[in-house]
Every structure is written in structure tokens, then in C-alpha cells.
């Protein structure tokens, strides 16, 4: 099994945490992993992306070739479209939050952004911010998105639960519980909308 994943968002939205949870789950399955991150200047409210590759066979490139990503996971709708050139036209899924992060003066018309997302043959678009609040943790929108992406990652759902318990192990049971709930709400949305 091999999955090439583009993670997208705006600096500070927690895409590295999504990568960390998937990464932990993959390593528990004895998979190989390469993950290229963005540090430095772009973290200041700019667009950020990460290449995450997991595979049972050794991985060569740190970067995913164009048109070969199995999945784009985005915590922001405009950002979900920025990296479409990486997505496989035949099989690629796009999973994105629909809550915009509007920190630029020329943010495009949200309806047009959503229309572009809805035009894609395989996509899941959900209001992760609202679901995160439902889960009791407004900061867990990224984990809701991860839950919605979990059917496409080739790993059993429980593996992500374990990974969340590990990733948030120092934050206490309440935080773990809220994140598990966030994961579940995202997953349920995806299951209903695939």
C-alpha cells in the first residue's frame, strides 16, 4: 500500500499535527514515510503545504510528482485548490474544510471557490469548524478534517484513534476525548457523503 498526500492550509492552522497523526499510524503499521514540511517565512499567515508519503515499500522522493497524489487534505477551501496540479486526475480525492481563512484583501468570492471544489469528481467538503465546536474543541478542526480523510488513507480507523491518543498523550484525557470525538464526527460526515 502506498499513499501520497498533500496537506494544505494557512500557517498556524495545524497541518503538521495532521501529518504527525497519520505518520504515527503509518509507522505503527511498519510503513516507510517521507514528509516534507514548510518552516520559516511562510509560517507567518502565508500558504503552507506538506508532502506526506507513506508506503510499505521504500520511498524515493521527498516530493510527490505532479498528478500522483492520492489525496489532498486541506483545512481551508481556497488552499485546497492551490495544489490541484499534484492530484491524480483519475483517482485522487480532495477533502477540505469549507470555513475560509480570510487574511488577504483579494480573497476570491467564496461561492466561486466552493463551485470549483464541487466540480471535482471526488471530494468531501465539510464545515470542520462547526463540527469541532460540537466535539467540544474549537481548535480541533484539523482533526475533524483528518477524520473525514481517514477512509482514503488505507489504514484502519482504530489506528488513527491510537495515533491521537499518542499525539495528545501529554495533554490529558479531556483533550484526547475531544479530539477522538472530532475525528469521529469527521469520519461520520465522510461515510455519509462518499
Amino acid at each position, binding site marked *: 500500500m502506498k499513499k501520497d498526500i498533500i496537506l494544505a492550509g494557512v500557517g498556524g492552522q495545524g497541518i503538521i499535527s495532521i501529518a504527525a497523526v497519520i505518520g504515527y499510524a503509518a509507522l505503527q503499521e511498519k510503513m*516507510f514515510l517521507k514528509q516534507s514540511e514548510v*518552516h520559516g517565512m511562510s509560517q507567518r*499567515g502565508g500558504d503552507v503545504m506538506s508532502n506526506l508519503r507513506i508506503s510499505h515499500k521504500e520511498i524515493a522522493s521527498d516530493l510527490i*510528482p505532479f498528478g500522483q497524489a492520492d489525496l489532498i487534505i486541506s483545512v481551508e477551501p481556497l488552499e485546497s485548490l492551490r495544489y490541484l496540479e499534484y492530484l491524480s486526475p483519475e483517482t485522487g480525492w480532495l477533502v477540505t474544510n469549507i470555513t475560509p481563512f480570510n487574511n*488577504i484583501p483579494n480573497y476570491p468570492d467564496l461561492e466561486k471557490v466552493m463551485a470549483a471544489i464541487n466540480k471535482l469528481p471526488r471530494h468531501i467538503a465539510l464545515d470542520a469548524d462547526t463540527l469541532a465546536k460540537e466535539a467540544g474543541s474549537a481548535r480541533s478542526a484539523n482533526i475533524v478534517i483528518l477524520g473525514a480523510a481517514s477512509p482514503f488513507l488505507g489504514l484502519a480507523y482504530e489506528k488513527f484513534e491510537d495515533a491521537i491518543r499518542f499525539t495528545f498523550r501529554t495533554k490529558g484525557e479531556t483533550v484526547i476525548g475531544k479530539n477522538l470525538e472530532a475525528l469521529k464526527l469527521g469520519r461520520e460526515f465522510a461515510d455519509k457523503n462518499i
Partner: protein
Amino acid sequence: MANKLLLLGDEAIALGALDAGLSGIYAYPGTPSTEITEYVQHSKTAKENKVHCSWSSNEKTAMEAALGMSYAGKRAMVCMKHVGLNVAADPFINSAITGANGGLIVVSADDPSMHSSQNEQDSRFYGKFAMVPILEPSSQQEAYDMVHYGFNFSEKYKIPVLLRITTRMAHSRSGVVRVECREQNTMHLPDDLRQFVLLPAIARKRYKNLLASHQHFIEESENSPFNTYSDGPDKSMGILVSGIALNYLMENFPDRNIPYPVLKIGQYPLPRKLVEKLIDECSELLILEDGYPMIEELISGYVPGLKKIRGRFDGTIPRTGELNPNVLAVALGLPDTKGLPVPDLMVGRPPQLCAGCPHIDSYKALNEVLAVLPKGRVFSDIGCYTLGALAPYEAINSCVDMGASITMAKGAADAGFVPSVAVIGDSTFTHSGITGLLDAVNDKSPVTVIILDNATTAMTGGQDSAGTGRLEDICKALGVEESHIRVIKPLKKYHDENVRVMQEELDYMGVSVIIPRRECIVAIDKRMRQKFK
């Protein structure tokens, strides 16, 4: 897999150094090199073993301190981003002449495509210029292994070794297996106590010694585990690939069977015999290297007759920017892959000053003061505040190199351009601004220097700033008149007052320093989170 650690290239280098008996790491923060030093700073083992790891004022002081530690017989590493090596160039070049005593590794992290930099210079040229061996990893595992190897090499030949990485190596995670740790060196001085005395008479001998070593370095490269020749049946093309470009090459052959002979380079000077073998056996050469076409340039001197060399010079590979699997696919004549089109509505989302950033209030005040004058009189520097060049502030007119704001403002003032304003961050000021301010004081140049003091090195993630709490004292000691050192608080409620102070100092025909002081908003957030964790 059990012993495999998931590490960034930067972290692999840091762990490699600790496991290889490092006694001190010296650095000034700079993307993409910062995480090497931070890893050591957060390491429990490093703390237990008293490994030096606090930040240096700049790359030059870092390089010199590392050389001093090497003189004392201990293993030292110095880390910087590529442009940092410009700052450290003097001690770096001369360290090749003095040589090392304890193992000494210089890490320079290049940034092809300029993700977070003002140029994409290739540090391998510095290594060649200094005539020191260069190591260039193709994987995080190699990055780890090369540190052990590099320290051994450095101690065997008493020479500093340059470890060159690029952004993708620095900031990409992969599995790394550790080897056995070893102890730090005991203190021991050089056998010849004049080794480090570069008086001309001694330097001439040392230089000849360095040149004589070069043949040994080439022989080491011929036998290096990091330089490998793999044969292929199709001799119509030979591939010479260095560093991380190897990964992009392999990506294009999913079964990992490359039909062409491939010479993979991870250690320089180039292994001459292996290169000649590739040239002899193949009709043409394809050179794949992330960065400047350095090997390509070197090889053209090796190749007899008209054998074709393909790479960045002939357009097979774009002349600028980092490599990726698709660039290589095209170069190899393989089918290029394409994804879906990005819709036309897409707009850029450049990085920007954070909400609540003190620089915003400083720029608003400065813009108001300067509004009555023709535009174009603010020289700035390297840091978060460089983002003040963008809308809506458009407050600065230069960003060249660390410290250049003060000296450029001075030069412009010398030309009669008054008022002339410099905007520099606190950490950039202690990095390279102090000497420039002294020049301005000595010449009584009419410049207004604004030191934006957010008490941290913000752009690289909030490292300690060398002059925190002492900026006024430093300026006073340099000879700036006390009445023209003005500390203000960049907050909206003090806007009018701040505008007035700036106006007064712009009107003063001498050196004045304004220090808008308020802690970085991200640093406060980080501090509070740690406090209430």
C-alpha cells in the same frame, strides 16, 4: 524498524553530531538550518554531557568559536543558512589554511527556489574555494552517517569539512537508524602550536600543506561510501547525480532499475577516476544537481572532444530553482505527469505580519511621519519586519543583507539624502548592525536608526536575541548621544506620541536611535503556553 527514528534532515545531523561525540554547536538561526541547533538545545543527553549549544551573535562569531573549540581538541559543529556562510567566509576560508585539531564540521543549508532567502547561492562553491572536502547527503540516513564520517575525516586530515544540505533535506522527515555513540574528545592542543598562526611565513607553508592534502582528498572521494558507481546496459547516456537529486531520479524508476550508468556523488572533491569512467563509457552525460550547475561546470573541463553534457546550461534542466521528480522526468525523456488544473480564481497568499504584531504600530507611525516627504527613504533589513515592504504598509525600500539597513542609510545620508531612515530588528542589530552604527557615529551622519525590539529572533521561530535588555547601553557605548536614544512603546494608544518622537529625531541632524519596544506576539503566546502547560 524498531530502532528507526523519524527525523528531519536537520535533526539527523544534530543527532549524528551528538552520537559522534560533539562538544559544542555554534550557530545563528537561519532557515533552513535552525532546527539543527534547536535539536541539540532540547536534547537531554546534550545537557547531561554539557554540550555547548547557546546561540551566537552571528555566523562569523559562531565559526570562530567552533574553530577555537577545535583548537582545544574537541569536536565542534557550526551551522548556518547559505548566506550565513558569506558572513562567516573570512574565518571559514582561513580555517582551511589553519586546519583543524578536534573534528570540525561546518553545516551550510542552501535554499534553492528561495523559499525563505534572498538568493539561491550554492555553498559547494565555498567548499571548493576554501579547498575543503564537502559532504552532500541524499537521505536523512546519509545526513546522520556523514556527521560521523565527517568528524573522522576532519581529525584524520586535520581539516574542517563542509556539510552541504538544501531545504528539502533540512525540512523533510524520514527514518534514521543510529550507530553506537562515542565519548567526547579529551582536551588536547595542536601538536604544533604555530598551526593556527597565519603569519605570512607560516601561512605559506600551511597553504602548501593544504594543496598537498588535496590529492588525498580526491583519493578519499574515490573510495568513499557516499560516491557510488552503478552500471547500466544503455551507454547512450551516463547520469551524474548529487545529493537529494538522487531521490528524484529514483522516483522516476519505480522498480529502481535505471538502464543507464549512474555515478552518485555525496563527497567532494569529485572522484576523478569514477567521473572519467562514466565519461569513457557513455556517449553523453546528464548532470543532476540541486543548486548551481557546479559539477556541470567542473566536468566540462574533464571531457575530451565534443561529448555532450546536458544539464542546466543547455536548458535540459531549468537554470534556476530546485529540482523535483517532474523536472527530472522531462530531462530523462520520460512521460511527464500532470494533475488537475488550478482554477483561474486562485490568488497568492503571501506571508504577513501577525495580527497584534508590534511592527505594525511602528510602521504606521513611521509612514505617518514620512507621508509629507517623497517616498523611498527607508532602508531595512532581514527579519519579520521585511514584510513591511508589502501592502498595506509598503513602508521600506531595501532588504539586502544582515545589517545593511544602517550602513546603506548612512551611505545615502553621506550622499546628501536626508532624512535617511534605517529599520532593523534587535537580533539583526546585534548580528551585524553595531559596527555600522559606529561608522555613523564616527561620521556624525544624519541618520535615524529604528531598532524594532521585540526581544526575540522572530522570523526563525523565536530564538534568544543577543542584546535583549542592553540595546540602549550598546548604543550609548558606541557614542550615540543619550538624548537621541528614544525608547517608545509601539501600541495604538501611543500612536500620536510615537509619531512626535519620530518627527523630532528625523529633524535632528545627527545619529539618533529610536527603539520601539514590545515583545513579539508569537513569543508571548509561546511563553504563556509553556507557563500554563
